[in-house]
């Protein structure tokens, strides 16, 4: 292992290269610019292609085109660019194009604040395009080391599921510096539990089988397989159709190829849940690090507290919240997003509370105060503009 001190942006770059990425198209934006910079340096070294697009919509379309041309593609952005992916993301979903999308969340809405973390795209990452009729795979790293692992994982899942996979990071993961261990040999890479799926080529003619099968090779043009690839509803052979029966079959596949293989996607950290703690803190991304610290400290004080960190965010892991408990959901936004899913999934009789802020991580001390209050069954103190309504 090569032990380094580096950023999440560097970790994501090295992971993509290791996973076989050979096309990056993007448009620079803080705090993901360094991914583009690093890829522009690294890709030529491995025979790959780097392209700066005129905007993010074009960037993801270029990635889609490259992927349909047989390349493994990635793009990276932040909120203001992420929203521009809407059109190209739909193409990738419907035409089942493997592609990896990194979003480093900063403070929004719109351009908001650049150099500070936010978590405003929890729902946007689920529904990054219009029209419904699909499921999305979203992974959320909370450290530089995990940004490496989950980027490799994103390429793996994208190939196996034939779908875009989103790595939903935040400014503190991508801009932050941490101890980073990079595998130097295949054995070390495998020992990290990582795997690379090489690009395969669908031989045709049933390019879009009406099944929930994964490991169906993607459509790759230029190999005499005769595939058509468009934004219209495809028949199983990839011909455009306006027949609602085919649409139903296609939508069923887009939904169930993901939902019926959750075992390959679902991932979470669970802290101290074995003795059914009274209060359970929930967070993803960097806030989960502070949550872990606060839960550890509370446990040392003998408090009945546990923690849950979803690592895969979508499909949402309802099963994590089947304990009846007092949940405190910690997020980097003021409006509450993850908390809505927890409220929906939580076991009957549970209480679900919200701790939100933007641009700045919570402190462990603040969370400990709220844990203590909740254990006393008292209402959380609110400073006037923090709200429990979401």
């Amino acid at each position, binding site marked *: 292992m090569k*032990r*380094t*001190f580096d950023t999440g942006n560097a970790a994501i770059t090295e992971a993509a290269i290791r996973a076989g990425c050979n096309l990056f198209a993007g448009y620079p934006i*803080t705090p993901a610019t360094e991914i583009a910079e690093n890829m522009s340096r690294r890709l030529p070294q491995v025979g790959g292609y780097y392209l700066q697009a005129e905007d993010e919509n074009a960037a993801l379309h270029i990635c889609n085109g490259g992927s349909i041309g047989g390349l493994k593609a990635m793009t990276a952005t932040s909120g203001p660019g992420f929203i521009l992916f809407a059109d190209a993301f739909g193409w990738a979903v419907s035409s089942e194009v493997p592609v990896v999308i990194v979003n480093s969340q900063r403070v929004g809405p719109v351009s908001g604040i*650049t*150099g*500070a973390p936010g978590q405003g795209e929890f729902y946007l990452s689920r529904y990054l395009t219009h029209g419904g009729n699909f499921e999305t795979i979203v992974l959320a790293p909370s*450290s*530089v080391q995990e940004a490496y692992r989950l980027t490799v994982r994103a390429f793996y899942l994208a190939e196996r599921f034939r779908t875009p996979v989103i790595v939903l990071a935040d400014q*503190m993961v991508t*801009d*932050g*510096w*941490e*101890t980073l261990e990079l595998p130097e040999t295949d054995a070390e890479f495998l020992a990290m539990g990582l795997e690379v799926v090489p690009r395969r080529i669908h031989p045709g003619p049933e390019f879009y089988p009406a099944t929930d099968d994964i490991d169906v090779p993607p459509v790759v043009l230029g190999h005499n397989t005769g595939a058509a690839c468009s934004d219209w509803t495809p028949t199983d052979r990839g011909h455009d159709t306006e027949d609602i029966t085919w649409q139903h079959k296609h939508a069923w596949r887009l939904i169930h190829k993901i939902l019926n293989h959750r075992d390959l996607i679902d991932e979470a950290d669970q802290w101290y849940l074995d003795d059914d703690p009274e209060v359970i803190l929930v967070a993803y991304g*960097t806030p989960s*690090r*502070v949550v*872990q*610290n*606060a839960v*550890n400290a509370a446990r040392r004080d003998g408090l009945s507290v546990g923690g849950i960190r979803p690592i895969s965010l979508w499909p949402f892991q309802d099963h994590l919240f089947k304990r009846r408990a007092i949940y405190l959901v910690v997020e980097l936004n003021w409006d509450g997003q993850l908390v809505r899913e927890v409220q929906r999934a939580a076991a009957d009789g549970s209480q679900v509370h919200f701790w939100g802020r933007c641009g*700045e*991580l*919570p*402190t*462990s*001390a603040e969370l400990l105060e709220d844990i203590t209050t909740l254990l006393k069954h008292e209402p959380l103190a609110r400073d006037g503009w923090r709200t429990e309504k979401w």
Partner: protein
Amino acid sequence: MAKRIEILISGYGGQGVVRIGQILGQAAVNQGLYTSMLISHGTETRGGYVRSQVVISDEFIDSPVVERPDFFCAFSGIAYTMFKGLCGSQSLILHNPDIVSPDPGLASPHWGIKAEAVATEELGDAVFANVIFLGALSSRLALLTSEHIVEAIRERLPQRFHEKNLQAFALGRARK
């Protein structure tokens, strides 16, 4: 219980706030320790607000947030005002008295170093002030060895800047 050191560095873009953190972090990694550095900044490359939160520990770092700094390098009056509230009696505040006036109501010990003036006088450029502060800070950092910091300076800075930065480091380290 882990040995955990929290260091907060804040000032303007261009003062080397991030660079100090990079050197400390690199030194910690080279020494086999765990480290994290969160960076918050404005949109500007130069002149905007910057803050580094550095944590060094002998075990995995859960929270990377500096809540009770052991050391606070305040490189601007604004940074000092913004973060002095985090400092307790255990926090050593390093500052330049030409730039930051200590708050007499604060329980934290202050260490005033006229780093910009020393850098200009001894090395011909105020730009080395941050490494003078790094040298001073390192003399109080039991967790990191001076050798590892020197090695990290060599790794993190281009070779043509090594000599003057190592001089700046020695100048800072010699301060009492």
